[in-house]
Structure formats: structure tokens, C-alpha cells
């Protein structure tokens, strides 16, 4: 098409559109316009892109993959290989499936310069380069040309164009838990769905096309009558949810079935992850092309394609047709053609041995040559030569398809598990009534099996109300046998033609591959790429197997077939990614960091201030005056119970038996293989009450590690039961380290109730008291930075208040906030190692230089045997302090240490061997030179040894092992410094205001419009108290709520059975102290070990209320929220948008409601994720937080 002709014919007409057809899906009362390669075409709503183009007389839609042969309509459905087009920014659109929308710009792919004059069609003349296996043969050597080969290959590919400016679509995800999922919405699928729903099952009916009906849609009056009846019945059945334009993509273990749902408003694709009770596979049959010379010339179509064009879209597919038919579908196609006014020049009946030999024509069919020698002028050849059973989901369920020569197709075969069944044409043949009767039996039996499974699930979950219901007693439903009708075996005719239309693999190619030795189906597939194109074998697999059988002289049954792997049809990567759930954690001081212009650092899930503009200045402030850093992510575990010293002695390498109240101690944990696992300080707050700190990144692992020991080796039922309860309180406290020589002065202005003098509150001590008017703060006197410092743990809701008070009241002292970077410099100057930075997965305690800490005289501790062994044999490498001789150079971390020489200059070891690496390095603002920590082979680790550091730029620089890990103040005088200044008295810092996780500054975003079907309320102010006690003892009986359930007690508090032996009690915002006291009284039972921990500040809590709550939660939560499994009063813990969340069903006034409860730091993220999930239902936000439960 030239530019001139575009101007001459600005708009095409629907010259091939027929009069109204009884089953047509187009809406003739409305018209749309779109462009095709720049030319405007009309369409009606309901038209596919291809049907509208065909109505306008278009016959060529693409060029083939290798030979760039013109291609037209073959199957006129989603799988049509020749009609994959570019639509606006979107490449690879299945245009025979995609409906036209107004104004879209459609263009062909893989053509240059135009569809009709394609220069690459010259490949047909140089086909010898593109013979089977050409990928493996042609582009091998020389290797330096590989980039050029890639460019050549890319130009042959089908790929469309992707614009980097394309906006991200909203790709959605949700979970579903249907009792029965029916894959395929034809007559069998609809009948099975109806029978299943009537037997009490919840049914998800999934149909690839835009409407239910399957082959009935392209049928005559009888079929259309049945279609109307079935559609009406499905629509009237409340137990059936219908997803059209959707595909069950795969079947995985335990009936996990991903379904892609397309074309939702504003959502390009949604992935439904379905956990299915019984899967009913009813995809129908796919018509198979016939292999002969010219079978890919535009104008050669399948009979189903012709019937779809005429009956669904009222498009006349040609003027003069030859019909090759071996079955009723072909006969019906001939009738449809005649009715559509097409001149049917010949009906070639394969059942009588008649055959087609070849098609003449290049860009379109001109004539058809028959086996009897006749050559008939025609522009259309219709073939109806047999069916392929799309056994994809059955293969993935364990079935091996079996070839049945009499029926000329594969049958499902044996091996299906109980939870997968088949219905419709894939299961066998029969008239419509017989197939419906069979499908109804399958549906009823599928429902029966699903109900048994649902009952087993109900029995297993603790969330159900009351006792499990009685077991269902339904008897198995007898399923009638379906036979298979005889069908002639027609695969390849008397000439060679295309087998794989997507990959341009011909029957001749398969013969030559067999001659080269690729004579098994799996080898053939990979060598020729047959069945590996966009159609993924749906059209071509059986023909490929048949041609292979013919070439090897064996039968199809002997040849076998390849197994269909997921996905059945390709979903977009966007659909697979779904909503991106990447939880982030914020400290309560985040609003202050934002205001101070902090550069954010992503550390695990935490967003932390890396610095506030000048890390070196922050370091100097700490060394010379005072700095404050937000260390909220430091892991904190609340330990209660009499056996804590036993636990600490087991987990830490050092000794813990004699830690006095008010003291803290540093400890290191190793794994059972002796490798350093975590470190931190633990302090004793009271007799049976300790607070353990861990590294930020190790908080979760240490908690799990503690639980592991308490639940297995030392569980209450074990021979050595330990009475210890561990509760993570990392985000219950906002943690601030106040460091520097003037930190005591600053603390004195804020702290009351604690004597801060060195005599009263010395190094490595812990106190509790009031800071800036906030009670119950925990103060450690420790020193990671090497300075006099206090770590203040504030009930998290008050964190922002205390942070701001510190900055305000320390202004004249020169206080500065400092970030993670300054802290890393400070600790490196001080020589403190970081687990995972200065140690790796092989560094055992001695290798980290922890010799004085490890107490091998303890009877047992985790990792002791390996450490004893290492103590005896020596650590292979050691952590050392290291300084480059040239202090101006900072060697990048991970720089290699390659060779070494002694002080006398003699080299030790071989010159190029890697002998270690720099693990940490920074420029020290205090020393004005670079400082490092390094791992070095043990023989080089002596202080004073000179080693060689190899920089990434190739320079080799000498460096010296230092006396200590510490570069600054190795004697540790600064952190014990007592400046002798006047301390206190505490100033009035105003009345502290507690903030919730959702509203860290006290404000919630205002999005209330009162029209939504969902309402979200911040319940953060409620008192939240955690109770631990034996799950089956007297205390549990007194509490009266079991695991998995929630109920309000006599005082109106909501008691949630949140875990085995664990209750979360939610009370009014003002009654926290009474609630704690009441629960302490309740749990004070002789002989039972119990604990009560106030988590009011440690958790985010919100309430979701409204008719759409379950639907919204299904987008972020994989749990079955149906009324039997998760009824009112159900309590469970699971993942919500990838955050571990307690979910409590708490209806009000008969309207569903849920309380969601997670760690405080994840609260804001969870809130945002729920706003996103609820947006499509309309979401109102309560301006006022809840204060009573």
C-alpha cells in the first residue's frame, strides 16, 4: 500500500459484511473507527480487530517468522498464528481475539517496509540458510560476531515494538477458593457448572472467549436455542461466578490454578490464584490444520474459522470456496458459506477418499488443485480434517495422553488425580444431549468431592465457629461413559506444507531433521522449534507428531507426544508480577527525618536516614559535642521467665548466669556450625524480665532461633523444659542513641527519675525512667560509637516527641542528628565489627577475633563443639584492623589482599595468591586518614605485618595490620568519660502526645466521601496486651477463648486467640493500665507459667468494615474468607500484602468487618496496600481513630 493509495482511499468500507446473522455478537447500532497500518477502518462493538479488518476486505495480516510469507486468517480465534499484531504501544496482541475499541492504531509486526512488499521475503529465495536447526548451524563462529548475529536474528523475530514511555498499567491479583473450577464455558462446561452449583458447590466458570457458549455460538438455530437456555440458567445460579475472556493457565500441585482475567476496565490483566477443590477440564477441541502445499496461503482457513467469521461477526470470508471436509463441522461450514452467499465451487469429502493436493497463489488463494486432477478457481479453501484435544491441564495433573487411531486424536489417558475431572469433547464424543448429561454427572461428582475436601478443611481450621459439622454423606455420582466417534486420520496430504505456522516449520523440514537423526519428538521439537511458537502446539502438535511418525515409519502411538507445560496461553509479565507488594518499615521518627532532609537508605525492609547532608560533620558532632541517631530497627526481644539465664547461656558464647538487675552485657551468638550469627547487648530489667537487643537485620532470625529452642529442645513437654516467653518488641520502642561527650548534659535536661551520674549509672548499665515527660522508657548506657552514650528506648507512639525534644533542648550543646553512614564511620573508627559485613558465612567466633568472649568451660552453648575444634586447630583467617600506609586512599570494600611481606621486606607466601579482603573501609574524619577492617589469613594477622591491597584500578598499595581493631581510643576512655558537669534538672518538655503508626504526625489523609462500600478506621489508640500461658491449662480455661477465635469479655475487651497459648486483648484507649492489671490477676494461677506484655505501642491496628471487605482482602490475602471457614469471630495470622498480619473477623450490625493488626513499623505500608486494594470498591477513611474496642 503506497502513500498515494492511502490518500485516494481514506476510509475502508465493510464490503464483506453480511446481513444480520442470528448469533452475531456485533452491535450494529453503534460504530467505531480504528486505523490499520495508517488507514481508517470502521467496526462495530463486538468486532475483533481481525473480524473488522476482514469485513473491510483485508486478507493479509502478517509475514511469517522465517520466510516472511504473507499470512492471513487461519483459526480466527486467540490462537490464530497469523494475526498477532501491534495495537498502540502493545505488541503481540492476539487480534482475532481482541475486541476493537474506538480510536486504536493497529499495525502489522515483522514487516519492513510494508506488509505487501516485504524485503525479507527474499529469505524464501535463500531458504537454505534457514533450514531446520539454523540457529545451531549458521550463527556459530566466529564468536566475535555474536552481537551481529543477535541483531540479524532480532530482525527475523515476530516481536513488536515496546515504547519505554508506555505507562505502567494496573495489573491486578486476587485469590479465589472455588469448590469447583470449570475450565471452559462451552455447553459441557456450563452444564457441569450448573450441576456442581446445584449440588451446593461454589463454582468458578472460566471461559477464554468473550461470551459463554463454546461451539454453540457458531452453530445454527438448534444450538443457539440451547445456548440461550444454558446462559439463562448460569446467570440465574448464584453459586456460579463467571469469568469470560479468562483462561485457566495451568494446574499445579494441590489444585493451585492460576487464571488470567483480561479486559477489565482499567486493568489490562488480573491474575486470579485459585485454590480449587475439584478442577473440571472442559476446553472442547481445537481444530487442526491440514498439511499440503500452500496450506499457509491467505485464504486457506479452518472450518471453525469460517463459521466464526460468518456466524459471530457476519463477515463473508471469500467469494468462491472449496471445502475439504472430513466431519460434520466441515459440512456445516459448507452450509454456512452457501447461506452467506459464497459460491461453493466444490466440496471435497475426505471420508470418500477425496483430497486436496495444493493451493495456487502467493498473497492469496487463486486456485485449488484436487487429487482427481481438477484445478478449481477459488479465493477460499476451507479445511475440516480433525481435532486436537488440548490436554494441557490434564498433562499437568499427571495424565499421559493416549492416541486413539480410530478417532484420529489423543485422549486424556489415565493418571488423573481424584481432584481433576474432564467433561465435553476432550472426554469423548456424542451428541449435544449426551455430552450435557455426561457433563452434569461430572459436575455433580466434582461438587461431591469438593464438599468432602471442604469438610476436611473445616475440620482442620481453628477459625470455624463451634464444632466441625458432620461429615458429608453424598454417594459418588455414576459418570456415563462417552465413546469416541470414528474419524479419518488426516494430517499430511500428498504434498509438503506448513506444520508450524508460528515458527515456519514445514513437513519437509521435519523429514530432513529426521534424516539428520533428530527422530524423537522431544529432540525434534528443540531442533526445529516446531510447537515452540506463540500457538505453543495447540494447532500443530498432532501434525508434527504425525509427520514425525511418517518420517520414521512408526505409528503415532509409538511416537508419542510432547507434554504441555504451563502456561496454556501466555499471560503478560505484568499479570505474573501482579500488584507489587514490597513491604517497607518506617520508624515513628520518619516525619522528622523527612523534614530534616535525610537521604534515605533502604536497609532490608527499613527506610533509614543515611545522612542529613554531611556525614563527616555528623561524625565530628558526635566526637566533639553530641549527636542523636534513630536506631529503632535494632532488634528488641522482651524476655520473661525464670529460666532466661539458661537460655542466654545456651545462645550466647559468653556467660550469663550472674547478670545483676540493672546491668547489660554484650554477647555474640553463633550457629551450630560455630559461625557468627548475631550480636547485641542484653539487659536485666527485673528478676525475671530481660530485654535482648539484636542487629537490625538479625531481629527476625534471632526471634525465630529463640522460639526454635523453646519449642523443641526445651519445650514444656521436653525433659528440660524452660519457662521463658519471648516477645518481639522491636517496634514497640522508638530507639534513639544519644552519643558524644555532652550526651549526659543533654540527657539530664530530659530525664527524670534516673540518676545519670557515672557512679549511679555507669557504663553497661540499664535503667528505666521518664524521658521528656514519657514514662516507661528504657535507657542503656552503652557505646557502639566509642563515645559516652545512652540508648533510649521510648514507647513508640512518643518517639517523635522525644526526638524533637532532644533536638530542641540540645541546640546550645551543638546537638546534630546523625545517620547510618556517620554511625558506620564511628564504629569503624572504634573497630566494632558488623555481623555479615566484617564476617561472612564461614567466619567462626575465633575468626572474628572474639577469643576472650568464647567460654569453652560452659557445659553447652550453641556451636560449642565446632568452636572447641577451631580453638584447638586455629582459625584459618582473622579479623584485623588495617591501615593503608598512604592514609589518603580509601580502598573500596571487598578489595583483595594479595600478597604480604614481613617487616624485613621478605614476601610471605606466593605473590598473587588472595590472602584476604578489606571488609570495611572509610575515611576517618577524626584521624584524617583511611581506616579499615579486614579478613586476613591467620599467618598474616599479627599486628605490624605489612600486606598488599589490590585496588580495583590495579594499583597495589602497602597496608599495615594495626595493634587493635580500634583506630580511635583503643583503651576505651572516652565512653567512660565523666566530664564532671552539672546534670539536670529535667526541663518541662510539654505534654507528650502518642501517635499511631497510621498517623505518625497525628493526621490521616482525608479521603472520605461517604460513598464507598468499604470504610477503614485507625484503631491504633486501642490498648493491646499480649498474654502467654499454656494453651490447654487453667489460665486458658479462665480466658475462655481458644486459638483461632475472638470474643468480647465481660468488660468489653476483645480477647483474640491469636496463637496457641497466646492471646491478644484489645481494650479501650484509656483503660490500658487497668487492663494489664486485670490480666495479670487473671493469669496468676499456681503452677502455670504465664506472662503479660503491653504491646499498645508496638502494633498497628486498623479496622476494615463494609460489604466489600472480603473482596478487597482477597486481593492481598490468600486465606479463604468464606463464611464457613472464616466466620464472624474468626482469628488467624497470615500474610496480608506480604506483611505478617493478625486478621480478626469482627462484624457489626450484620455487615462484615475485620480488624487487621501488624507490627507497628509495617502499619503505614499495610494501610497503603489496603487503600490500593479497596480502591475499586470505593473506600472511605474515618477521620476519627477508634478509642473503644
Amino acid at each position, binding site marked *: 500500500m503506497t502513500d498515494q493509495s492511502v490518500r485516494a482511499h481514506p476510509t475502508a468500507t465493510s464490503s464483506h459484511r453480511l446481513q444480520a446473522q442470528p448469533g452475531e455478537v456485533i452491535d450494529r447500532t453503534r460504530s467505531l473507527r480504528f486505523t490499520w497500518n495508517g488507514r481508517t477502518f470502521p467496526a462495530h462493538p463486538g468486532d475483533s480487530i481481525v473480524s473488522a479488518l476482514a469485513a473491510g476486505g483485508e486478507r493479509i495480516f502478517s509475514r511469517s517468522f522465517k520466510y516472511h510469507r504473507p499470512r492471513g486468517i487461519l483459526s480466527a480465534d486467540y490462537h490464530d498464528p497469523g494475526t498477532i499484531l501491534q495495537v498502540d504501544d502493545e505488541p503481540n496482541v492476539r487480534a482475532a481475539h481482541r475486541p476493537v475499541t474506538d480510536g486504536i492504531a493497529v499495525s502489522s509486526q515483522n514487516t519492513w517496509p510494508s506488509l505487501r512488499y516485504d524485503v525479507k521475503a527474499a529469505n524464501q529465495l535463500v531458504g537454505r540458510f534457514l533450514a531446520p536447526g539454523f540457529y545451531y548451524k549458521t550463527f556459530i563462529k566466529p564468536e566475535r560476531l555474536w552481537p551481529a548475529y543477535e541483531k540479524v536474528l532480532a530482525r527475523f523475530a515476530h516481536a513488536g515494538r515496546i515504547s519505554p514511555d508506555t505507562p505502567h498499567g494496573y495489573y491486578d491479583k486476587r485469590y479465589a477458593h472455588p469448590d469447583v473450577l470449570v475450565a471452559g464455558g462451552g455447553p459441557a462446561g456450563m452444564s457441569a457448572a450448573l450441576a456442581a452449583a446445584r449440588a451446593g458447590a461454589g463454582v468458578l466458570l472460566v471461559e477464554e472467549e468473550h461470551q459463554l457458549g463454546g461451539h454453540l455460538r457458531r452453530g445454527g438455530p438448534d444450538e443457539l436455542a440451547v445456548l440461550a437456555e444454558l446462559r439463562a440458567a448460569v446467570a440465574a445460579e448464584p453459586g456460579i461466578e463467571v469469568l469470560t475472556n479468562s483462561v485457566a493457565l495451568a494446574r499445579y500441585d494441590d489444585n493451585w490454578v492460576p487464571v488470567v482475567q483480561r479486559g477489565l476496565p482499567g486493568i489490562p490483566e488480573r491474575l486470579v490464584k485459585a485454590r480449587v477443590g475439584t478442577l473440571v477440564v472442559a476446553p472442547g477441541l481445537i481444530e487442526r490444520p491440514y498439511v499440503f502445499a500452500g496450506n499457509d496461503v491467505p485464504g486457506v482457513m479452518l472450518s471453525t474459522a469460517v463459521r466464526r467469521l460468518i456466524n459471530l461477526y457476519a463477515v463473508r470470508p471469500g467469494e468462491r470456496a472449496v471445502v475439504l471436509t472430513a466431519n460434520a463441522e466441515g459440512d456445516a461450514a459448507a452450509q454456512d458459506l452457501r447461506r452467506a452467499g459464497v459460491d461453493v465451487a466444490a466440496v471435497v469429502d475426505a471420508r470418500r477418499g477425496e483430497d486436496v493436493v495444493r493451493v495456487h497463489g502467493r498473497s492469496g488463494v487463486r486456485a485449488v488443485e484436487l487429487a482427481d486432477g481438477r484445478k478449481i478457481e477459488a479465493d477460499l479453501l476451507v479445511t475440516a480434517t480433525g481435532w486436537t484435544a488440548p490436554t494441557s491441564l490434564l498433562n499437568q495433573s499427571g495424565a499421559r495422553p493416549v492416541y486413539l487411531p480410530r478417532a484420529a486424536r489423543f485422549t486424556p489417558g489415565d493418571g488423573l*488425580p481424584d481432584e481433576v475431572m474432564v467433561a465435553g469433547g476432550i472426554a469423548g464424543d456424542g451428541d449435544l444431549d449426551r455430552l450435557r448429561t455426561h457433563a452434569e454427572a461430572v459436575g455433580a461428582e466434582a461438587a461431591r468431592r469438593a464438599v468432602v475436601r471442604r469438610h476436611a478443611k473445616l475440620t482442620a*481450621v481453628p477459625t470455624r465457629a463451634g464444632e466441625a459439622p458432620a461429615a458429608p454423606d453424598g454417594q459418588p455420582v455414576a459418570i456415563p461413559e462417552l465413546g469416541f466417534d470414528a474419524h479419518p486420520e488426516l494430517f499430511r496430504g500428498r504434498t509438503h506444507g506448513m506444520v508450524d505456522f508460528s515458527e515456519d516449520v514445514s513437513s519437509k523440514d521435519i523429514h530432513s531433521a529426521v534424516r539428520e537423526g533428530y527422530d524423537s519428538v522431544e529432540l525434534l521439537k528443540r531442533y526445529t522449534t516446531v510447537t515452540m511458537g506463540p500457538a505453543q502446539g495447540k494447532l500443530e502438535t498432532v501434525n508434527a507428531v504425525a509427520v514425525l511418525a511418517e518420517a520414521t515409519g512408526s505409528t503415532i502411538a509409538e511416537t508419542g507426544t510432547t507434554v504441555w507445560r504451563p502456561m496454556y496461553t501466555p499471560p503478560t509479565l505484568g499479570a505474573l508480577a501482579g500488584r507489587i507488594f514490597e513491604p517497607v518499615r518506617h520508624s515513628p521518627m520518619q516525619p522528622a527525618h523527612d523534614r530534616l532532609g535525610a537521604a534515605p537508605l533502604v536497609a532490608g525492609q527499613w527506610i533509614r536516614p543515611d545522612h542529613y547532608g554531611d556525614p563527616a560533620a555528623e561524625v565530628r558532632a558526635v566526637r566533639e559535642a553530641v549527636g542523636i541517631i534513630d536506631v529503632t530497627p535494632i532488634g528488641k526481644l522482651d524476655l520473661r521467665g525464670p529460666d532466661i539465664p539458661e537460655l542466654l547461656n545456651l545462645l550466647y558464647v559468653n556467660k550469663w548466669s550472674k547478670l545483676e538487675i540493672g546491668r547489660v552485657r554484650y554477647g555474640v551468638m553463633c550457629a*551450630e556450625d560455630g559461625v557468627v550469627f548475631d550480636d547485641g547487648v542484653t539487659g536485666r530489667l527485673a528478676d525475671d524480665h530481660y530485654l535482648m537487643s539484636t542487629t537490625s537485620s538479625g531481629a527476625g532470625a534471632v526471634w525465630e532461633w529463640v522460639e526454635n529452642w523453646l519449642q523443641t529442645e526445651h519445650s514444656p513437654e521436653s525433659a528440660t523444659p524452660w519457662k521463658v516467653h519471648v516477645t518481639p518488641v522491636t517496634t514497640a520502642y522508638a530507639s534513639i542513641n544519644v552519643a558524644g561527650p555532652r550526651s549526659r548534659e543533654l540527657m539530664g535536661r530530659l530525664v527524670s527519675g534516673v540518676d545519670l551520674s557515672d557512679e549511679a549509672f555507669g557504663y553497661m548499665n540499664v535503667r528505666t525512667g521518664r524521658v521528656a515527660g514519657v514514662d516507661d522508657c528504657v535507657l542503656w548506657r552503652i557505646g557502639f560509637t566509642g563515645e559516652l552514650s545512652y540508648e533510649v528506648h521510648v514507647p513508640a507512639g512518643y518517639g517523635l516527641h522525644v526526638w524533637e525534644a532532644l533536638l530542641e533542648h540540645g541546640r546550645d550543646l551543638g546537638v546534630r542528628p546523625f545517620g547510618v553512614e556517620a554511625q558506620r564511620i564511628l564504629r569503624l573508627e572504634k573497630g566494632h565489627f558488623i555481623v555479615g559485613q566484617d564476617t561472612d558465612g564461614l567466619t567462626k567466633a575465633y575468626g572474628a577475633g572474639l577469643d576472650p568472649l568464647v567460654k569453652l568451660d560452659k557445659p*553447652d552453648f550453641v556451636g560449642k563443639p565446632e568452636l572447641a575444634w577451631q580453638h584447638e586447630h586455629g582459625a584459618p583467617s582473622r579479623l584485623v584492623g588495617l591501615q593503608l600506609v598512604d592514609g589518603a586512599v580509601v580502598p573500596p570494600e571487598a578489595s583483595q589482599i594479595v600478597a604480604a611481606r614481613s617487616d624485613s621486606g621478605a614476601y610471605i607466601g606466593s605473590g598473587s595468591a588472595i590472602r584476604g579482603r578489606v571488609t570495611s573501609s572509610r575515611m576517618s574524619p577524626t584521624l584524617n586518614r583511611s581506616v579499615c577492617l579486614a579478613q586476613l589469613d591467620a599467618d598474616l594477622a599479627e599486628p605490624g605485618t605489612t600486606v598488599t591491597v589490590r585496588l580495583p584500578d590495579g594499583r597495589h598499595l602497602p597496608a599495615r595490620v594495626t595493634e587493635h581493631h580500634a583506630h580511635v581510643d583503643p583503651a576505651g576512655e572516652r565512653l567512660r568519660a565523666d566530664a564532671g558537669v552539672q546534670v539536670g534538672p529535667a526541663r518541662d518538655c510539654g505534654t507528650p502526645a502518642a501517635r499511631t503508626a497510621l498517623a505518625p504526625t497525628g493526621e490521616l489523609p482525608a479521603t472520605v466521601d461517604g460513598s464507598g462500600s468499604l470504610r477503614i478506621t485507625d484503631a491504633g489508640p486501642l490498648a493491646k496486651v499480649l498474654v502467654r500461658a499454656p494453651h490447654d491449662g487453667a489460665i486458658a480455661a479462665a480466658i475462655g477463648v481458644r486459638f483461632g477465635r475472638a470474643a468480647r469479655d465481660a468488660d468489653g475487651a476483645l480477647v483474640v486467640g491469636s496463637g*496457641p497459648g497466646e492471646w491478644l486483648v484489645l481494650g479501650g484507649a484509656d483503660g490500658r493500665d487497668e487492663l494489664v492489671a486485670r490480666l495479670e490477676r487473671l493469669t496468676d494461677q499456681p503452677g502455670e507459667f504465664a506472662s503479660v506484655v503491653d504491646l499498645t505501642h508496638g502494633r498497628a491496628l486498623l479496622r476494615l468494615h463494609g460489604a466489600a471487605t472480603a473482596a478487597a482482602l482477597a486481593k492481598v490475602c*490468600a486465606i479463604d474468607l468464606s463464611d464457613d471457614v472464616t466466620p464472624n469471630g474468626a482469628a*488467624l495470622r497470615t500474610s496480608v500484602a506480604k506483611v505478617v498480619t493478625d486478621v480478626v473477623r469482627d462484624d457489626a450490625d450484620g455487615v462484615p468487618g475485620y480488624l487487621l493488626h501488624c507490627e507497628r513499623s509495617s502499619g503505614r505500608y499495610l494501610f497503603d496496600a489496603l487503600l490500593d486494594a479497596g480502591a475499586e470498591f470505593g473506600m472511605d477513611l474515618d477521620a476519627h481513630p477508634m478509642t473503644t474496642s
Partner: protein
Amino acid sequence: MIQLPCPWCGPRNVAEFRYSGEVTPRPDPATATPEQWRDYLYIRRNPSGWVDETWYHGTGCRRFIRVSRHTVSNEARPAVRTGTTAPVDVTSTDSGAPDAGGAR
């Protein structure tokens, strides 16, 4: 995604659990030889068949549980709460757990 039958929570997606390996008894560190200790650390049966495993239901009840799982079919028998003394019964085939897969 397979499901695991949590003895506390009922069947849950396996992504909610952390695999903690085959059940491996800890030798007495006071008497174990280095070889015995390293067997405990590193050597696993890894059978093609039934194996007793420890899983941690971190996104649920936060309990360590014992699951008897078939490594070929992924079939899981009803799991056992750790801390109880009940042994994992590997002879039972009467799997009442939903979605346990059945014999394949």
C-alpha cells in the same frame, strides 16, 4: 504452590512456612565426636520417599511443626505439633488432611 497441613492452623500455602530441614536429633555436645557433630550439621538422608521434616509456620501460628512429606509426590501426612512426644506416624496412609494430594 503446595499446601502444608499445619496441625494448629489447618492447610496453608507453603510460602507461609520456613523449611527447617529433616528432623535431625542433636547429639550430646559433651560426648559427640567431631564426626558425629558434623554429621548432625551437614549430613541428611535426602530420600526419594517419605521424610520427616521440621517447618516453622512463621506467617501463622509461629509454631515449629513436624511434617511427614513424600519428596516425590509432595504428599504430606497430617503434621505433628513439636514439643509433644507423639512420634510422626509414617505408616498411616489414611490422610484426612485436605489437599493432601492422595496417592498418585
